[in-house]
């Protein structure tokens, strides 16, 4: 038998002190309902006055809580409970305020009078201002409960006069009435508010300061809040009124200058609950008479663009008529323009232009014609395409259609000068000189004295080697604009170029004339006399051609005047090459056969001259003969102590000139002075590889990779990017060009790829390659491409991480660039005839043209002497 458990001890009943402490804590914590319950338990023990007052306090808290939630009736009941439980306490101001708000004016006045002096002074002042506000609003019950001489009644007359005067715009009467309201009046807050409203709009801050003096408990506080909303910044008025009630909103909007119609439309939008296009479309349609039919319709069309063509039905849903054909075309063009990547904008605007001309071709000069012209040239003016595109060079932009559209626009708006020049420059870039001339003729016929068009005409003439014509245009330009330094320089260069042409053709008299004219136009500002220097050298070469002995003497004197160093030798060699003379022979004739870089100044001068040549002959490298002549002496000049920026510039110039040995010498010299500097590591790496067969050693690659890391850490993103590009060529994926896991970002390429599915080679070829890889296997393809075992192992790791399908996509991407090489090694019948062309190069990059960094071997010139013969 089990032992009976010992009975559990009964819970100890709380003592009155415990209950009182708990109730006070609950009140302090705002837990009024619990406090009320606790106090009731306390009063069951004994009906003590101080405990009833604690309950009254809890009731007051709960009543305020309910009133704040808008539960006014419930709040009133709780206040009444408070009055019953502690009748000895004066009525609370919040209770009286609630009574007034609920229209129980008489009760409020009676309780207020009863409370009288037992209210604290602030509460009494607030109560009297509330009674005053209600009295002023016409509540007669207030007067009935007050003594006849109460200031609320006595001063209420002046307050009402002041208010009426303000509403009527009678400022004199307002001033007089306000003067009759004493400082300690229950209408003092009203006086402050009316004074604030008298301030001019520019002094809004002064008005707001006056309003800030009105207390929140005042009977005039709602009026103050409405005024504050109205006087704030106009652009945020509606935000300030978002939670305001009807009375406050109407008052503030009226005060802020909003008319009835404006307020009504705003209210309508607010009730709709959102400002989405459909809501605005409904507003536009409903108020179209007020807004103007045309305006409302046009704005409605703009609301449809983002969702077009699905949104086409919205306008009918809102009550308006369906879209017309013209409206549909216009919205479609807007939509195409916003989605430039679609490439539909040209067609879309063309369709709209055709529609505008559907019924009749507009007469030039009319608004209709101008509209057609603007639409036809819209794609160019919006995307600024003709300023940089080359005819038929960008497969993503139909340049011919674009140029045709702009040219067509001139039929309707022949006064648009810019279109002529844009088209001429565009065709000149081709070069399509025939089209450029056609546009020039049209433009110059209309604007014969336009410097821009004349300059374009000069450039067209120079491009066609029509130097006489170019000189004529240059003269016209200088006649219109005598300080046009660009035209003067072009003119001199044009004469020099023409002189070279004549010298090459052995027409010495004509060459001499050209040189005379070049001298005539030589600009006074000519920096370092470079143009003059070239002219004098050409003159000496002319002498040499006419009389070898005399010419040699003149030439020798001239190069000595130029310092007789390497800079002079380079200047002479460049001029000689331009007229087809072998540089080596010329240098010997001029006594520069054994020239070397004389000093640091000579080195600076020769690099500067080389840079100028490369800048002027954009994209050109130094001729192979000149490279052989100058490579060794320039390499030897690397010993001169240049500053770090000078060394960087030197390496960069030598890279552009493809003087790789000299570049290597300068990079190594710089690395001795500034070990590990990333840019010199890059130059050393690239120049060291030039002309060498096979891949660089792994330690060389590691050294460059470390330099790239240092560049990135030091914030030199440009060098880091260049090193990354260089390393990509020697990565495990180097056989296919750039690695798909290349760590350096290339924003341009990312942009190109955006929104495109995986289809790097075009559908058919893609499928064929996929099938080929499936059959041969990833490893088989890599072997076929000559990838080594170690690198193939890397591919296998990647395949394990990314999956077989992704690996195939990676291979297809990489194979794209090496397809011709691979195809050579494949058995016949493996691949179909390629359909679509692979992804083309970016705009501006001419396919097949070697870049300045190209390592393609140059055709050797067997006739050129070795440099050792000369230096």
């Amino acid at each position, binding site marked *: 038998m089990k032992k009976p458990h010992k009975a559990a001890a009964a819970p100890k009943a709380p003592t009155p002190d415990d209950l009182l402490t708990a109730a006070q804590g609950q009140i302090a914590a705002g837990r009024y309902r619990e406090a009320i319950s606790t106090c009731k338990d306390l009063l069951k023990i004994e009906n003590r006055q101080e405990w009833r007052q604690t309950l009254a306090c809890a009731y007051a808290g709960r009543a305020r809580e309910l009133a704040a939630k808008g539960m006014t009736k419930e709040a009133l009941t709780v206040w009444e409970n408070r009055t019953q439980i502690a009748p000895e306490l004066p009525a609370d101001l919040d209770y009286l305020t609630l009574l007034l708000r609920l229209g129980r004016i008489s009760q409020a006045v009676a309780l207020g009078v009863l409370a009288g002096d037992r209210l604290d002074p602030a509460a009494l002042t607030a109560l009297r201002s509330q009674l005053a506000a209600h009295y*002023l609003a016409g509540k007669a019950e207030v007067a009935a409960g007050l003594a006849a001489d109460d200031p609320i009644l006595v001063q209420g007359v002046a307050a009402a006069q002041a208010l009426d005067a303000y509403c009527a715009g009678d400022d004199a009467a307002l001033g007089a009435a306000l003067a009759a309201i004493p400082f300690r009046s229950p209408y003092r807050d009203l006086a402050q508010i009316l004074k604030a409203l008298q301030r001019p709009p520019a002094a809004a801050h002064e008005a707001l300061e006056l309003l800030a003096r009105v207390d929140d408990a005042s009977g005039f506080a709602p009026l103050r809040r409405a005024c504050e909303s109205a006087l704030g910044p106009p652009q945020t008025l509606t935000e300030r009124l978002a939670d*305001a009630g009807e009375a406050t909103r109407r008052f503030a909007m009226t005060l802020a200058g909003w008319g009835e119609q404006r307020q009504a439309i705003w209210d309508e939008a607010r009730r709709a609950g959102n400002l989405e296009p459909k809501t605005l479309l409904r507003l536009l349609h409903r108020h179209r008479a007020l807004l103007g039919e045309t305006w409302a319709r046009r704005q409605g069309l703009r609301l449809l663009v983002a969702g077009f063509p699905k949104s086409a039905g919205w306008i009918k849903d809102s009550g308006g008529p369906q879209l017309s054909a013209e409206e549909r075309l216009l919205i479609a063009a807007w939509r195409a323009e916003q989605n430039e990547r679609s490439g539909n904008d040209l067609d879309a605007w063309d369709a709209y232009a055709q529609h505008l001309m559907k019924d009749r071709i507009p007469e030039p000069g009319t608004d209709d014609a*101008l509209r057609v012209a603007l639409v036809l040239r819209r794609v160019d003016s919006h995307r600024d395409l003709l300023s940089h595109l080359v005819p038929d060079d960008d497969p993503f932009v139909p340049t011919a259609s674009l140029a045709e559209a702009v040219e067509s626009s001139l039929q309707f708006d022949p006064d648009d000068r810019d279109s002529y020049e844009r088209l001429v420059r565009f065709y000149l870039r081709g070069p399509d000189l025939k089209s450029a001339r056609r546009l020039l003729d049209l433009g110059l016929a209309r604007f014969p004295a336009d410097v821009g068009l004349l300059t374009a005409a000069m450039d067209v003439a120079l491009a066609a080697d029509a130097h006489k014509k170019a000189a004529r245009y240059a003269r016209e330009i200088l006649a219109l604009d005598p300080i046009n330094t660009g035209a003067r320089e072009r003119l001199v260069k044009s004469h020099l170029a023409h002189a070279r042409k004549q010298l090459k053709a052995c027409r010495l008299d004509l060459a001499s004339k050209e040189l005379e004219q070049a001298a005539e136009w030589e600009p006074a500002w000519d920096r370092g006399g470079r143009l003059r220097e070239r002219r004098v050298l050409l003159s000496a070469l002319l002498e040499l051609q006419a009389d070898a002995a005399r010419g040699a003497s003149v030439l020798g004197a001239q190069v000595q005047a130029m310092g007789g160093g390497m800079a002079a030798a380079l200047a002479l060699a460049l001029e000689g090459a331009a007229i087809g003379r072998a540089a080596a022979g010329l240098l010997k004739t001029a006594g520069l056969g054994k020239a070397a870089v004389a000093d640091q100044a000579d080195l600076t001068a020769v690099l500067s001259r080389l840079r100028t040549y490369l800048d002027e002959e954009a994209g050109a490298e130094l001729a192979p003969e000149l490279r052989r002549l100058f490579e060794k002496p320039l390499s030897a000049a690397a010993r001169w102590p240049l500053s770090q920026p000078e060394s960087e510039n030197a390496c960069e110039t030598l890279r552009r000139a493809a003087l790789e040995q000299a570049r290597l010498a300068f990079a190594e010299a710089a690395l001795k002075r500034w070990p590990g500097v990333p840019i010199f590591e890059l130059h050393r790496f690239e120049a060291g590889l030039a002309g060498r067969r096979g891949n660089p050693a792994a330690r060389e690659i590691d050294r460059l990779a470390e330099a790239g890391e240092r560049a990135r850490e030091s914030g030199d993103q440009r060098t880091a990017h260049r090193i990354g590009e260089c390393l990509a060529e020697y990565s495990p994926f180097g056989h296919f060009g750039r690695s798909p896991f290349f760590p350096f970002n290339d924003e341009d390429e990312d942009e190109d790829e955006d929104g495109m599915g995986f289809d790097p080679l075009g559908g058919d070829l893609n499928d064929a390659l996929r099938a080929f890889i499936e059959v041969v296997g990833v490893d088989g393809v890599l072997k076929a491409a000559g990838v080594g075992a170690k690198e193939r192992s890397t591919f296998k790791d990647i395949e394990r991480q990314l999956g077989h399908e992704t690996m195939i996509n990676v291979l297809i991407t990489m194979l794209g660039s090496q397809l011709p090489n691979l195809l050579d090694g494949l058995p016949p019948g493996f691949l179909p005839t390629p359909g679509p062309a692979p992804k083309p190069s970016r705009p501006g990059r001419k396919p097949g043209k070697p870049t300045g960094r190209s390592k393609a071997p140059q055709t050797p010139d067997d006739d050129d002497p070795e440099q050792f013969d000369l230096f």
Partner: protein
Amino acid sequence: MSDPYLLLGITPDADDNAVYAAYLAAVKACPPERDARRFESLRAAYEALRTRRARLAQALFDQTPPMLADILDQADPVGAPRRPDREQFNKLLRGEA
């Protein structure tokens, strides 16, 4: 506000002179030193409407969807501050929000 006509307070049939006069008046009323942002808006509106060609282009190519403020301004532009009437005062004096 995005509509340049509303910004300058002119009608769509305004010519070059009217546009220029409206721009000058607007800049005079709100010089750049007082409100640089508004001045920029006025300047942009003026550039958009300065010539006949620009006005036609604005009508053809402006795709900016209207905002509620545009509709309100077109319907009933904000005027000078007005004095509320006595009844509007009374509502607030009675404690209405």
